């Protein structure tokens, strides 16, 4: 009954080609009231939001991934076909807003005619209406609407024009969907498909001939086709010699022939002058200047990351130290105070300090994406990427990986070749993501003196070096994997280079807000949990051992004539050593000693395998337990730490460098492993990824320590 009457919450799907401005329209209509989930059973991110329209119930607007046609080459496109050919599915829309770029109508109507032939109630949304006047385009809307037999609404997602008309059209359509059904299809399955369809038409759960044809093409991977039917389709295809590719080409050609005259009659372009975008590309994608500009941009990005972020960071630092002090004053001494101030607040503060940097990183990346520069980067570096077994599109993942590996890995879905996509997924986590920033900042201060050479700070150079090490190791690993993995599948570039446009700031804002919020919530949850568990583990221990430790501490203090503060410190460190956390640390100490780490660092490493940014929080918890002062500056406490065996500071340059290298390489992010598992469809690749990264980290850190020590 899905399509014949209004369901409780009608689902309206936004469908269109990539680069049609579909997401801009979605952001315009839903603002920040978006939910991000997954399409059931698959890994593709599902963005949806509620839309209020007078006269009809609340509408759920679902933003489908961009697709070129009903013959998918990428995972994203497959999902669109999967959901739109399954009328019984939960995601099957009651209506479709088909978004097309008015300046590219002659290609964007291909998918439109296919979906209309599936008998889906549709509205054609002509986006980029602002360009109509700007470029002197003439569009005959009534004629287009009549010829295509759907309502046509011009909007400008950029300038927010046409929303009221669009809502009115949605309301009309939902109130009377039957009036929007089409009598005459654009395309009737041709000679190549006639025999196979005659046999299968009654067997397939299809609404019309074209629906049956698509099911025949795609039965082998569509999830809603049961196994026996799949076999039947396959056998019938073989019996009649159905050639899927040939039939697809025939269909596509015929569709172009049908709708090209319609576009020609209703749209008039104003001359073919070289646009600003072409002139910009003359420089930005120039064979020599192009790459130089790219690297200059990246340099500027990382420079800004540190220059702009320092001021809000100081503010956040201050807030958390006030908060910690406030909690102590308000609650007085006690275990709850210690847990809150030393565990939770110190741990959260340690990570939230990096929110400004993370936000700036996402800001830059989403601007580059919005402007259209990412596609150019993919074009320029395709040649190099191919040599490493990757695709030009991998550049997008490798750049976004510097913000967070999770969206970066998800962005690889546009890579159609499985091997290139897999390699990109495997090596992307080696690029230094924003969660490594807290760890780097703290450790670099121990590894490198705060001096400058020719105006460059040593510490800043070390920072740049770590990022470079990350990207270098990613490329080298890709090359190694390329040698091992074999595939016969063809690889494609075929990349659209959309005109440059000033970014829609709403889109940039929504992206930065969502990604930053996700980071805070996800990191916050893990840190909260680990802080509490860790605090418990490091405060309690086996009763006998803890008593022995206390007696031992009392004896040492008496022998050395300690005052009250010194005695408290000795007691705290003896207790930590006897606690459960101490046992864990001691247990792994033999393994990590060749890397220059003691058992306390061992505890931090152990907890970091959940999420690397936990390192800072763990340090805060370990070093502030029992400490009498309220000092939140973790760095100062680490600097005070003395190795009892050598009498030297624990955090000498050798240990710090070894730790830094370990954190560059190690796979310390449960969420990334989970995403790799989802995207590769099993445990095999995440396990391989985890193992090779951790072995790489261990061996390199050992080499670094042994050379420097």
């Amino acid at each position, binding site marked *: 009954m899905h399509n014949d009457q209004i369901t409780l919450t009608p689902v309206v799907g936004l469908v269109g080609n990539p680069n049609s401005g579909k997401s801009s329209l979605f952001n315009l209509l839903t603002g920040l009231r978006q939910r991000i989930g997954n399409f059931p059973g698959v890994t593709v991110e599902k963005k949806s939001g509620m839309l209020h329209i007078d006269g009809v119930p609340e509408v759920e607007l679902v933003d489908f991934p961009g697709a*070129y*046609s009903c*013959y998918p*080459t990428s995972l994203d496109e497959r999902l669109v076909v999967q959901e739109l050919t399954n009328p019984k599915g939960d995601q099957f829309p009651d209506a479709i807003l088909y978004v097309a770029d008015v*300046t*590219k109508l*002659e*290609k964007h109507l*291909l998918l439109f005619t296919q979906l209309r032939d599936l008998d889906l109630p549709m509205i054609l949304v002509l986006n980029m209406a602002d360009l109509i006047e700007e470029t002197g385009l003439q569009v005959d809307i009534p004629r287009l609407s009549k010829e295509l037999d759907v309502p046509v609404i011009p909007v400008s997602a950029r300038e927010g024009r046409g929303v009221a008309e669009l809502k009115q059209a949605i309301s009309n359509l939902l109130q009377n969907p039957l009036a929007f059904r089409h009598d005459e299809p654009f395309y009737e399955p041709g000679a190549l498909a006639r025999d196979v369809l005659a046999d299968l038409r009654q067997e397939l759960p299809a609404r019309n001939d074209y629906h049956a044809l698509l099911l025949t093409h795609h039965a082998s991977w569509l999830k809603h086709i049961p196994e026996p039917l799949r076999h039947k389709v396959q056998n019938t295809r073989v019996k009649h010699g159905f050639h899927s*590719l*040939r039939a*697809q*080409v025939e269909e*596509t*050609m015929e569709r*172009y022939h049908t709708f090209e005259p319609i576009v020609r009659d209703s749209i008039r*372009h104003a001359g*073919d002058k070289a646009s600003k*975008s*072409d002139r910009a*590309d003359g420089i930005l*994608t*120039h*064979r*020599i200047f*192009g*790459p130089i500009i790219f690297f200059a941009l990246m340099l500027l990005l990382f420079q800004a990351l540190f220059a702009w972020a320092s001021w809000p960071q100081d503010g956040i630092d201050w807030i958390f130290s006030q908060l910690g002090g406030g909690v102590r004053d308000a609650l007085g001494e006690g275990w709850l105070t210690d847990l809150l101030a030393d565990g939770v607040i110190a741990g959260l503060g340690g990570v939230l300090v990096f929110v400004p940097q993370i936000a700036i990183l996402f800001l830059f990346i989403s601007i580059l994406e919005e402007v259209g520069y990412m*596609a150019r980067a*993919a*074009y*320029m*570096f*395709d*040649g*190099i990427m*191919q040599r490493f077994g990757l695709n*030009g599109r991998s550049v997008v993942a490798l750049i976004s990986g510097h913000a967070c590996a999770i969206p970066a890995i998800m962005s690889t879905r546009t890579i159609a070749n499985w091997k290139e996509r897999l390699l990109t997924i495997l090596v992307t986590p080696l690029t230094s993501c924003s969660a490594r920033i807290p760890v780097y900042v703290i450790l670099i201060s121990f590894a490198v003196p705060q001096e400058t050479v020719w105006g460059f700070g040593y510490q800043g150079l070390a920072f740049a070096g770590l990022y470079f090490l990350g990207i270098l190791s990613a490329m080298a690993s890709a090359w190694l994997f390329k040698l091992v993995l074999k595939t016969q599948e*063809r690889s*494609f*570039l*075929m*990349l*659209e*280079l*959309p*005109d440059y446009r000033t970014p829609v700031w709403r889109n940039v804002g929504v992206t930065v807000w969502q990604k930053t919020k996700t980071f805070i919530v996800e990191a916050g949850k893990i840190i909260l949990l680990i802080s509490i568990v860790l605090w418990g583990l490091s405060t309690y221990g086996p009763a006998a051992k803890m008593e022995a430790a206390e007696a031992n501490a009392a004896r040492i203090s008496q022998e050395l004539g300690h005052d009250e503060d010194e005695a408290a410190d000795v007691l705290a460190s003896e207790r930590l050593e006897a606690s459960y956390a101490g046992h864990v640390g001691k247990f792994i100490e033999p393994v990590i000693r060749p890397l220059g780490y003691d058992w306390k660092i061992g505890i931090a490493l152990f907890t970091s395998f959940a999420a690397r940014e936990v390192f800072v929080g763990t340090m805060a918890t370990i070093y502030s337990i029992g400490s009498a002062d309220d000092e939140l500056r973790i760095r100062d406490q680490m600097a005070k730490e003395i190795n009892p065996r050598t009498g030297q500071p624990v955090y000498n340059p050798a240990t710090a460098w070894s730790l830094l290298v370990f954190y560059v390489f190690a796979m310390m992010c449960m969420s990334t492993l989970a995403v790799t598992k989802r995207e590769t469809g099993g445990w095999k690749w995440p396990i391989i990824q985890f193992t090779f990264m951790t072995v790489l980290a261990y061996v390199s850190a050992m080499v670094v320590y042994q050379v420097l020590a």
Partner: protein
Amino acid sequence: MPFPRSTVASNFVAGMSGTIERFTNENLAGKLLDIGIKPGSRLRIIRKGPFGGSWYVKIDRHCVALRKQELACIMIK
């Protein structure tokens, strides 16, 4: 500068242009058609990628990046 008579688009030099006649590879044809590259479209080679391998191509009024193998299956008249 026009292409020599009926040739594949990979026999190119930057600046050449012509009209697409047909595709010689069905597998690539489906994908090229999907992104709006079709017989009758005007194809113009704009420039070569900085590190080789890819070409900046204009199809009618729209820009795309294509590899040499992809151009090799496009017949120009």
